[in-house]
């Protein structure tokens, strides 16, 4: 497989996952505000700002907007194409990647990614605010349908593994960001003193990872921050937990490198394997002893290193190191600008 095609498959999976995660977070936030009896459009600051920390760049947001409320945050995270992580940017870039290697994916996959693109391309702020539930649902359903089509129509070869690696690496990163932001915000209340509003907020954390029902099937009694953290970090069966996502990334990368029996490793196998081993033996006490924020920041850095190592090992292994642009772990290094140039030709002019 060409490294260019592998890179496109990886980033296609990654961008679509990011679009889904952002749609989910916005959807949940909107409905939490309704649950705690606040009009989402009037609520300002407190409940919208964390979403920018999860899904975007606070500095960039402040450059574009004067205030932080439902309409500015929605615009920034959904429609603003200057934000490379907005839903629109993610879907546009996923489609650009798909278009450049259209022969490597099935036509059904292409049609679905194109549907999503046309859906988001024509969306306006008015459409979203008129019916946010439907809008976010369509984005999430669209991405999930894409993954379903991929499962049904794409051969289980390296290409499929690159899509999975992109998807799960992004998912692990997203869950880590969510934990980081939400715990800093909600941890201030002692568990014994939690009010019903706090409980709704904690439920929202689970719902932002579509984890509420899966969690309740295992933990039937109280909604307790430690149990939630344990579930989102370490659960071995829930497909959006960090452990599950890292292990899925590991298995995808291992089947690409042929290192399924763990006998010989390349740098990617080592980076992601180290992370998987750490997560399988870590306890909450270990995390608290070094501070949750410190631990989760370190985890995000490790995930970025995995992404960078995949780039170096599979996509740019011929590229001279001096030629690399700035370390940008969450977006593609050179997709938007042209990366392949034609050699000059000499006129026949004797």
């Amino acid at each position, binding site marked *: 497989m060409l490294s260019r095609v592998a890179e496109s498959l990886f980033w296609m999976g990654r961008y679509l996952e990011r679009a889904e995660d952002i749609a989910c977070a916005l959807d949940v936030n909107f409905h939490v505000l309704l649950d705690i009896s606040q009009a989402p459009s009037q609520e300002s600051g407190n409940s919208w700002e964390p979403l920018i920390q999860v899904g975007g760049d606070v500095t960039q947001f402040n450059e574009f907007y004067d205030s932080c409320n439902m309409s500015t945050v929605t615009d920034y995270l959904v429609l603003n194409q200057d934000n490379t992580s907005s839903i629109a940017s993610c879907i546009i870039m996923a489609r650009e990647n798909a278009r450049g290697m259209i022969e490597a994916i099935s036509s059904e996959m292409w049609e679905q990614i194109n549907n999503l693109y046309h859906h988001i391309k024509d969306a306006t702020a008015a459409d979203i605010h008129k019916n946010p539930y439907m809008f976010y649902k369509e984005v999430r359903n669209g991405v999930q349908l894409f993954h379903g089509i991929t499962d049904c129509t794409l051969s289980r070869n390296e290409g499929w593994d690159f899509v999975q690696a992109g998807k799960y690496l992004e998912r692990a990163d997203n869950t880590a960001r969510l934990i980081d932001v939400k715990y800093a915000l909600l941890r201030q209340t002692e568990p014994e003193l939690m009010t019903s509003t706090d409980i709704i907020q904690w439920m929202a954390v689970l719902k932002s990872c579509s984890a509420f029902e899966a969690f309740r099937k295992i933990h039937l009694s109280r909604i307790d921050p430690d149990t939630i953290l344990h579930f989102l970090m370490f659960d071995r069966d829930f497909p959006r937990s960090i452990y599950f996502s890292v292990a899925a990334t590991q298995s995808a990368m291992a089947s690409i490198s042929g290192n399924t029996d763990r006998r010989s490793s390349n740098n990617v196998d080592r980076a992601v394997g180290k992370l998987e081993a750490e997560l399988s033996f870590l306890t909450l006490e270990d995390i608290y002893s070094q501070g949750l924020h410190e631990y989760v920041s370190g985890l995000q850095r490790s995930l970025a290193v995995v992404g960078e190592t995949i780039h170096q090992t599979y996509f740019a292994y*011929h*590229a*001279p190191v*001096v*030629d690399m642009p700035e370390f940008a772990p969450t977006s593609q290094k050179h997709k938007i600008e042209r*990366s*392949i*140039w*034609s*050699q*000059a*030709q*000499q*006129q*026949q*002019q*004797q």
Partner: protein
Amino acid sequence: MKLYVEHNTIFQYDAPVYETATELRLQPVDGSGDRQRCERFTVQVDPPAPIFHYTDFYNNVVHHFNLLRSHNQLTIKANSVVVTGIPSPFTPADDILLRDLLLETRYVRCNDAVFAFAEPLKSERIDIFAERVAGKIFETFIYEPGVTGVHSTSTEVMELGRGVCQDFAHIMLAVLRCHGVPARYVSGYLYGGPGTEEHPRASHAWCEVYGGSEMGWLGFDPTNEQLLVDERYVKIGSGRDYGDVSLVRGTFKGHATEKLQVDVHVRAAE
């Protein structure tokens, strides 16, 4: 006439580039109606890379290679020894190819100006018509390097009234094709005569016209006063236009400014 051709191409980059893929159409044709024999052809690239070759639809031999590792410079040296002016058996061209050679292409564009240009020169005989067209192009257009580029079209050259051999060949193809005469673009070298060996030269281009199954392919050079292609001409290959026979072309990755330098030397055997 036995001719030695040295063709050196150097790409220089101000920053490292990588994953270069290059195609060469530098090997002179051998036999089958082309009145020449290619006795020897070698091509070397530096940094070294394995070189593969295949024959394309227009019967040109294409060498190609990839350089994956990063590099700042790419040198391509091609050497050939060709004996020209020898009779060789001719096989009539097939219909599909001829139909291909009547169409407009990226560089060869037909329009009213092109049609009108040759209207008074019409003749029953294709060879006479083609020679008149070549003659009129030679008289009408001014040879001037630098005013046109490698991707100039015949329409642009028509308006400018000046250009180089590549442009004149495209004009001639446009004129002939819009009057229903199949003609092809030929890439090659021209030996300039004794005493010219030291001057670095560029490659040359001219046209071949299909004169029917009896006359076969006839070479005309609208850039030189003599008009008829003779044994000083070394033919590399042919196609619908420059795009089919571009000598060196390819792609690379990386962010660098490219500098291209080409040296061609043609000398005759003692």
